[in-house]
């Protein structure tokens, strides 16, 4: 190895360490704080060090009905949204990429464009729509956790459909022709050939749908208010922050536990996670 190359490598590692510190300080600080007692936090000793580590915050939260309710709401919503998303987007992606019908090309583009419409543009009309719906039918949608089952798919379905179209398009056309000749119908081709073959894409899309549902903040903030209907992100912010009293040890513990599911999925399925991330722009 030449001298130049050695130095380039040293500089690379040097800057990578700097950036890693920048990128990892907040989560590490979350962990540090979560291990402290309130007394230690307000004592204003060295904030970067834990002098009397304790799991008290964790025990307190994991035995608190309220926190567990948030967690359960989040989990139920995310799992259901993932299921709904897959049930909607996989058949649609198959129809759009393989079967072609009148307007299917336009629809594929339209799906992609919907993905670009941010939720911040839609929450007010949706809020009003739900209110009107209540007036018309007497069914109250606002302030029930399951309203999120209805609105979250608008965030997950377009992108998942889009990347599944990309994955399905990369399957050679001969494969479905072979299945057709072997006597498989369209549904059989989808279930027995396409889904198994595009499984990596399906996993990537599932991860995407889960992380988006888990992290969504605006919709639950706008549509749910009662403490027992909240999901984690909103729950932590509205219930653990009481007035001006910030119990930072608990907030950090709650946030860290709230960040755990996506982080665990990421740790185990990193390649799928990254594939899904890059698929949006590189496929299609």
């Amino acid at each position, binding site marked *: 190895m030449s001298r130049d190359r050695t130095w*380039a*490598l040293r500089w*690379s590692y040097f800057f*990578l360490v700097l*950036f*890693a510190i920048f*990128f990892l300080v*907040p*989560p590490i*600080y*979350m962990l540090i704080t979560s291990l402290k007692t309130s007394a230690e936090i*307000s004592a*204003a000793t060295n904030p*970067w060090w834990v002098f009397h580590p304790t799991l008290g915050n964790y025990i307190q939260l994991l035995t608190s009905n309220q926190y567990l309710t948030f967690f359960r709401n989040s989990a139920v919503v995310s799992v259901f949204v993932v299921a709904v998303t897959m049930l*909607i987007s996989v058949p649609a992606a198959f*129809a759009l990429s393989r*079967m*072609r*019908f009148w307007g*299917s090309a336009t*629809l594929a583009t*339209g799906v992609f*464009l919907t993905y*670009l*419409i*941010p939720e*911040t*543009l*839609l*929450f*007010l*009309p*949706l809020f*009003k*729509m739900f209110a009107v719906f209540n007036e018309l039918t007497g069914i109250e949608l606002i302030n029930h956790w399951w309203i999120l089952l209805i*609105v979250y*798919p*608008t965030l997950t379905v377009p992108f998942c459909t889009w990347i599944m179209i990309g994955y399905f398009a990369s399957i050679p056309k001969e494969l479905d022709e072979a299945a057709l000749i072997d006597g498989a119908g369209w549904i059989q081709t989808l279930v027995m050939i396409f889904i198994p073959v595009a499984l990596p894409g399906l996993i990537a899309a599932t991860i995407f749908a889960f*992380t988006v549902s888990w992290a969504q*903040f*605006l919709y639950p*903030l706008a549509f749910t208010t009662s403490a027992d209907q909240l999901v984690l*992100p*909103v729950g*932590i*912010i509205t219930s653990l922050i009481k007035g001006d009293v910030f119990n*930072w040890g608990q*907030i*950090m513990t709650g946030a*860290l536990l*709230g*960040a755990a599911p*996506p*982080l665990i999925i*990421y740790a185990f399925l990193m390649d799928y*996670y*990254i594939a899904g*991330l890059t698929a*949006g*722009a590189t496929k299609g």
Partner: protein
Amino acid sequence: MVDAAIRAEGVKSGARKRTSLRRMMQRKSTIAFFMALPLITLISLLVLYPAGYSLHLATLNKSMERFVGFGNFTFLFTRETFWMVVQQSCIFAITAVIFKALIGFVVAHFVHNIPAKGQRKWRGMLLVPWVIPPAMSCLAWLWLFDPSYSAFNWLIALFGGDPVPWTGNTYWARFSVILVNIWIGAPFFMIMYLAALKSVPEQLYEAAAIDGASWWQRIWYVTLPMMRNIIAITALFSLIVTFANFDIVRIMTAGGPIDTTHVFATWSFRVGIEGADIPLGASVSLFMVPILTVAAVFILRDITRRGNES
């Protein structure tokens, strides 16, 4: 049964043959249409309809009983806060995207530089900010920026500096929300660029090296042109997401101090939900549309062009 009928009569009757063929093709499109129907319903009912509905809402008065035309917009134009929001939204989005792109590019290069077996580990570590739900990581930043217990200020004090009012005064608060945005978004750019860097054939660099190009010339003449597409599309995606961002400002500053860090999304939430003036809130959020449209058009152009090439 149908087959038998066709076999018996198909030879004689040409017209009948055509119709049954068409029926077969129709059946295929019908199945396809039904498979896509849930998607179409979802999009039209919960995305397209509300998008159009917000246009309608924006023309109503606060109690949504009276049509006021452009009244909400003209009212906004007279409000100083509105112009501040416009300015802050643009500063917020543009600065953040530029720095995300720069940092993402630099970090991607460093990761690409080191031996392949270590790359996975580094890449995994550096993407963590993107994986943590923004609401959670913003809480961590909020705590790092705490007025009395800021861990950053503690470090600064250690070196004899004055405490920084991270979220306390307008300029620092603006800096802080942008910093957090960069922290969350830069890893995404890094991942996209890294994927793009991997797709540049090694022979091109070898050819450039043989032609006597310096490392800087290699970046300028080989890497950047090869990555131009990905750079552009990532930046446009990020511009849309950043411009419409809600979580960061909402949690970090809630728009304060005195509304100076509000962006369109947070202000329309403040006005529409908390201020219970849905039409005015809808009007505010509609101001995001022009910039989103421009970005979307460019993205779409790129995608259709690539579609045509393949």
